[in-house]
């Protein structure tokens, strides 16, 4: 039984981590594409249009990857988490089916039209198709986050005698207090990833002295979008989410912040340290007193319950992983504000394009927003443990009763192999698109 749960979780973690490389780029990138296309409509400078179409080619590669790695996610609800699907399907099936019907069709239909139909439609309709792709892609995010929000903080349900969750109030799925902060945080994080990618491509072109005018435009836009979104990510949305965790999942809050013992007069904020689960303390700790209480409750001496206040069954089952994920996310987020602030400053002083070391730095920064996004999701998912539906349904109660661990390990190995191939394909396709660069077409 233990190893069944282990392999089911490992397979889901692996496949969702790989999957989320792609949507996090497409959601943010669709916004930037709409921006460029809109600017072209207003200013009539061809360069903006070329960039919009260039970015949509990168979008299309990522969208394809998102589709083929997304189907296994939907399937796994049934294949590996059958009991969970049986018990909660009448609720989370609503939001998942809505994603398919409202967002996915919208995104895929109009993506094809955007790429193939510019000449047929004219510029205004072409802008509209771009906007609909954006709407579909953010709509997807909204429905997936609504599903996750229900698992984090279940609302509008009733539990029958046979253990099944049934929907009692449809609209509460969308007025869930967990949803809006999580959605906004997730979307801004996605904008961070895509603006870092855009800035990085721009820096690459400038450093290579190729596609120079396009490069400058990409870099400039990437830096502005990157700066604004990294700030919004920390405040207000990051702050808002942390307060939600403190309120609805206090045990997870203590674990992710690394507070082993409750302090009477205000909790400190941990900057660095390694959780020592044997002695129940942090090794090599560097912390600032009372800041956590202030950040969470705006009161310096407000008591925040530490892990000692909770029984082991209530605490997440992998505290070090949760703690590190959280601190990596927050640490990277802070660094992003710093770097984009610096780049923004030089942009304002009109010196950015000559700052070679900074451009190199921006170019190589690309993996880090991906890491921050994915660790952010690890915080949400590890923090919810040991539950699938917080406080109500344990993860161990959700797995498929008939699928043995041997079968799951077999399919996990299969996914590892095929995703390796897929990852190579992705790099080839994106690399080739970037190498070709934006093209100007004469009409």
């Amino acid at each position: 039984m233990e190893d069944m749960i282990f392999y089911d979780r490992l397979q889901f973690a692996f496949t969702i981590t790989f999957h989320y490389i792609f949507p996090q780029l497409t959601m943010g990138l669709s916004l930037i594409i709409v921006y460029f296309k809109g600017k072209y409509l207003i200013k009539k400078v061809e360069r903006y249009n070329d960039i919009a179409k260039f970015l949509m080619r990168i979008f299309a590669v990522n969208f394809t990857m998102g589709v083929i790695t997304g189907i296994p996610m939907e399937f796994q609800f049934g294949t590996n988490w059958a009991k969970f699907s049986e018990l909660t399907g009448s609720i989370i099936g609503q939001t998942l089916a809505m994603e398919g019907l409202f967002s996915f069709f919208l995104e895929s239909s109009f993506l094809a039209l955007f790429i193939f139909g510019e000449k047929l439609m004219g510029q205004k309709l072409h802008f509209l198709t771009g906007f609909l792709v954006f709407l579909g892609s953010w709509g997807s995010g909204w429905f997936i986050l609504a599903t996750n929000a229900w698992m984090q903080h279940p609302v509008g349900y009733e539990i029958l005698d046979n253990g099944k969750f049934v929907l009692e109030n449809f609209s509460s799925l969308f007025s869930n207090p967990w949803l809006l902060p999580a959605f906004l945080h997730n979307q801004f994080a996605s904008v961070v990833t895509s603006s870092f990618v855009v800035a990085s491509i721009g820096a690459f072109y400038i450093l290579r002295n190729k596609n120079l005018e396009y490069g400058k435009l990409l870099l400039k836009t990437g830096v502005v979008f990157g700066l604004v979104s990294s700030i919004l990510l920390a405040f207000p949305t990051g702050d808002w989410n942390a307060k939600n965790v403190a309120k609805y999942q206090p045990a997870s809050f203590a674990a992710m912040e690394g507070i082993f013992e409750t302090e009477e007069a205000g909790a400190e904020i941990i900057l660095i340290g390694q959780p020592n689960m044997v002695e129940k303390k942090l090794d090599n700790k560097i912390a600032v007193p009372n800041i956590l209480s202030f950040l969470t409750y705006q009161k310096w001496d407000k008591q925040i319950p530490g892990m000692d206040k909770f029984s082991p069954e209530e605490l997440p089952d992998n505290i070090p992983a949760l703690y590190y994920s959280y601190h990596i996310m927050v640490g990277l987020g802070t660094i992003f504000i710093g770097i984009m602030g610096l780049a923004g400053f030089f942009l304002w002083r009109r010196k950015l394009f000559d700052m070679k070391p900074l451009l190199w730095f921006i170019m190589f920064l690309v993996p880090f927003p991906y890491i921050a996004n994915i660790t952010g999701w690890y915080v949400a998912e590890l923090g919810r443990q040991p539950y699938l539906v917080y406080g109500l349904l344990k993860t161990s109660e959700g797995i498929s009763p008939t699928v043995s661990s041997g079968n799951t390990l077999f399919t996990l190995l299969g996914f590892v192999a095929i995703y390796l191939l897929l990852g190579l394909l992705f790099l080839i396709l994106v690399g080739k698109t970037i190498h070709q660069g934006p093209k100007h077409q004469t009409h």
Partner: protein
Amino acid sequence: MEIFWFIIIAIVLIVFFVLDGYDFGAGIIHLFYAKTEKDKEVIVKSAGLFWDSNEVWLVAAGGMLFMAFPTFYASVFSGFYLPLMIVLWLVIFRAIGLELRGQFDYEMWKDIWDKAFGVSSFLLALFFGIALGNMVRGVNLGGVENGLSTYEAHYFFLPLWSSNFSPLNESPGVIDWFTIIIGLITLVTLAIHGANWIILKTNASINNQLKTVILRLNIALSILTVFSLMVWQTINPNSLDNFMESPYLIIFPIIYISGLMGLFFIKKLKKDIYGFVCSTLLILGGISSSLASIFPAMLPSNNTVNESLTIYNTAAPEYGLSVALNWGIIGFILLFIYVIIQKRLMGGKIDTMDYGH
């Protein structure tokens, strides 16, 4: 309300097989009949332009099945664990082939990915048919051994095959000689459908030859169909009861037969689209007849201990289903509009079309 959602999901699933079916079929034809580089390229293009928007229909069908019949979703997806995972890998592998092929202009490179695309299309068509065969044949629900259930009544787990590949075993496997027959029927049907698609959408040099191919495949299909009905009668003597009780259901087999008959005249048809319509009727009639014959069951139980999974005992409660109906209607109207817009703008032959890049 259950019946309503059952019909909607069946329609979405049929649309998926009609749409993605032609690009599976194009893959099968590509594997066996495309010889020149120009033909290969144009066939891959005819499938490659649309495959991801076609697969969205599968995702939509999955989502709705999950919402409306959660117990069925849970039972079937975990019970058919291995074949489903293999289908997923094939879907991914096929996509890799389609997307990678054109990236380098290098013969060996193209050959490798052509084969990946062709072989995975072939296997997918076969596996989808085997899946349909399993649904019609039924499974050992509850994993009954010696009259006792090993699992909860609505769960099961199917091995890929049992030792003698017989559908008459107490616990038959996924692949037995009955499901293989249904698999072959699906394979042939989709090959015909794909050939029709290629004729409709391209100017490939093999288009005339393909009409002969369709004719031959159609003869094979007729024989397989009759054969499968006989086999099915042996396995399940009650298989035609639904049609006896509700004679109007005969419309579904008639749709299938009219598609089959129509294709015998493939060379005389005035427009290419008629051939495509005939193979669409085959898919529509084939799936709907299969579903109608086991209704209201969606997965029959082949033991006497546990009852079949039906649309009634696996459905979500009334409230959820009726709320979903409200947003479902809006969603389908929108979807209908997208499809019209898309088809109007993207009609015509693929190879003569200028997509502006």
